[in-house]
């Protein structure tokens, strides 16, 4: 097989998967704290626009990413205010956030349609990228790919190895008990929502900064929803979110190549494939891996303290 082709396929898989990794991790950190945020799609597209606008204005990549995460966090803080302070129904609020984000980005982004952002250069990791065959395929991507994997590590470490992570899990598991033990349920959830919003924003910005350096209305195309589903099927574990996202990305790319090569299967079936394979695989993982697969105990429940 042609190694150049292989490495370009791997590259396109990573490019297709990375937004889902960021958005999935953003949803995961919130859900582990017991917050069901259906607004991921809206957060993503706002991040996509903010990142794109910054890049078009000529700022470096790092600033674009920061602006994208800031935009995501700011929009998420509206969600936090509504759900945590005003006790709004989280499902309805999340849906509204998605609609609001899509609308806001379409309005504010209309002037950017048709413009192009500068291409993001790949990071050639010294030495590793020189390894024959796999070197270029694995170690020469844009910085965000590495950042997404690093983020998953950080979240895994945070959840399992730090006391704050333990408190976050406790808040998500049973907010009444967590409150009784003296933890600030609202505080923990607020921070989780802000971090989750920032991650979703970065996930969105990947679409406009790397995937297609353009901005188009509604360009997230349901990725926020896929990320939310991934988190559930990944049993709320960071590395499984990565695995699910890469599987989804792989099958989407492979089926695209399949369509290009003229495989004699209706294209609708091929387009369906990524969803079916990902859900199937993650269901199998989840049903096999023993106990503690359940959703966080107070996921999506409204917390009100009595005073």
């Amino acid at each position, binding site marked *: 097989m042609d190694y150049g082709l292989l490495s370009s396929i791997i590259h396109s898989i990573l490019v297709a998967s990375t937004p889902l990794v960021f958005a999935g991790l953003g949803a995961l950190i919130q859900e582990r704290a017991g917050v069901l945020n259906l607004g991921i799609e809206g957060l993503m597209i706002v991040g996509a626009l903010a990142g794109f606008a910054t890049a078009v204005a000529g700022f470096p990549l790092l600033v674009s990413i920061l602006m994208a995460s800031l935009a995501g966090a700011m929009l998420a803080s509206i969600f936090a205010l509504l759900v945590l302070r005003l006790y709004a129904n989280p499902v309805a609020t999340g849906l509204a956030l998605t609609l609001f984000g899509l609308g806001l980005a379409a309005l504010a982004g209309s002037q950017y349609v048709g413009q192009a952002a500068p291409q993001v250069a790949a990071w050639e990791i010294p030495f590793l990228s020189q390894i024959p065959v796999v070197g270029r395929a694995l170690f020469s991507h844009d910085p965000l790919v590495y950042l997404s994997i690093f983020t998953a590590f950080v979240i895994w470490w945070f959840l399992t190895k730090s*006391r704050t992570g*333990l408190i976050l*899990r*406790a808040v998500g*598991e049973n907010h*009444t008990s967590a409150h*009784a033990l*003296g933890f600030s349920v609202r505080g923990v959830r607020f921070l989780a929502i802000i971090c989750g919003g920032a991650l979703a924003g970065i996930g969105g910005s990947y679409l406009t900064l790397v995937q297609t350096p353009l901005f188009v209305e509604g360009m997230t195309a349901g990725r926020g929803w896929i990320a939310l589903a991934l988190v559930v099927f990944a049993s709320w574990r960071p590395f499984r979110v990565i695995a699910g996202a890469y599987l989804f990305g792989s099958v989407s790319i492979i089926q695209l190549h399949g369509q290009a090569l003229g495989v004699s299967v209706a294209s609708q079936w091929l387009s369906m494939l990524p969803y079916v394979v990902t859900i199937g695989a993650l269901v199998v993982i989840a049903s096999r891996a023993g106990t*503690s697969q359940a959703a966080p*105990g107070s996921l999506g429940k409204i917390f009100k303290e009595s005073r």
Partner: protein
Amino acid sequence: MTESVAIAERLSASSKQCLGVRGLSKFFGDFAANRDVTLSIDAGEIHALLGENGAGKSTLVKMIYGILKPDAGSMELLASSYSPNNPSDAKSAGVGMVFQHFAVFDALTVLENIALGLEGRFPDEALAAEILEVCERYRLHVELDRRIHDLGAGERQRVEIIRVLMQDPRLLILDEPTSVLTPQETEQLFTTLDRLSDEGRSIIYISHKLDEVRALCDRATLMRAGQVVDVVDPRQESTRSLGEKMIGERLNETKRTQVTEAHSQKARFTVRVGDVYPESTRNVVLTDVYLSVAPGSILGISGVSGNGQDTLFDALTGELTLPNPDSMVLDGEPLAHLDVEQRRLRGLLGAPENRLGHAAIPDLTLWENVILTARHTRGILKNNHLISGTSAKEFAEEVIATFDVRTPSVNAKASSLSGGNLQKFLIGRELLGNPKVFIVSNPTWGVDAKAQLFIHQMLLKLADQGASIILISQDIDELLSVTDRICAICHGRLSRTFSTEEMTPEHLGALMLGQEIDS
């Protein structure tokens, strides 16, 4: 013991009084949950807080633990002023609390749960070693790497107690700690508490169980309607006199007066099942379920929670249907394959343990909750389609009037009723449907003494009218005073059935732990 002497010396360096509460009041709107409450607890004292549901005990301890803020009054802890803003303040001041509904996290391990209760601690080896040391000192056994959802109620409580002990508290608050324990576990708990009091730690002990208070506590503060009505030495009182002081009325004792000729009568409802597989793998599989009840007879099924009672209840009421119709027979008719509705129409009714969520929908009104199970009575459901609100309301009114349910109206939400009142309503709802067989699970869990008595009388009256009753309960006193025959369930296996007359609490305890006894 020298160790505990050393600890006692260290603790007694402070004053004799541990906690002083003066004129504490708490209002929810116009309702006074606590009014001018005064309380004094000495170092090393085990002090009982007695009162019916809604008497204000929980409100009081919530204020002491910083969960609620008092509207008036002051508190003093170890001779200095004390006004906790939140539970962390209370903890750092030396107050620890073991909750009635355990504040543990199901999906986390024992070690993680304990670490969460300690400021700034992480579940590592060092903490594990410290915990084991405390466990050893108080002879409490737990496995640190197990997850809470795999543990029984007694073990969960131990986790809570260890968590609190790790904070080296001066004052421990226990809210109804024995409601889910076996007699053996209760005894263990008392040993631990005695040891703590020997060390000079004070304990506030909230309970409905007057026998326990008499056996354990040095003093008792009695509360009624948010106020302190008396402070007594429980050892100088009888269970009855304590109960009367607590309720403010004279009590009639429940006792099965006539042990009916039930034994000689032919069984009406028989169950013969090899194995029952529950719907969820978390529940216990039942094996060898053989039981029968005659008309007018009450069969008690005792057992520590989590030993298959849920599955048994589901299988009996039809929430879980069985493949072989003949494994359950009512008046000669096989019905094991029938669902809840079908069984109800044949006179087999049930009242589950979980009142809010299973027996009733919390956010629906009482009359709406009537429709859930009683829709085939009194024309509530017209032509099998339309609900008659009027009939449902009338039915609910009748339940409220007949069974002395204290509620403003039939339009009150189920969740707004106290445990005892809601239970009276829910059992009444079934009883007005004239059950032939009535299956009830833990009817008096978390219910105050007066309502408890009333519910027992409801059951006895029902049996006298000729119904067969199966009472699944963890309350040994209840089983011994109400039932005719008794058996126990342990790990999903039903023991032999014994006549209640020849049963002692010790025997029953052994049965609950799966030991067969000879008699």
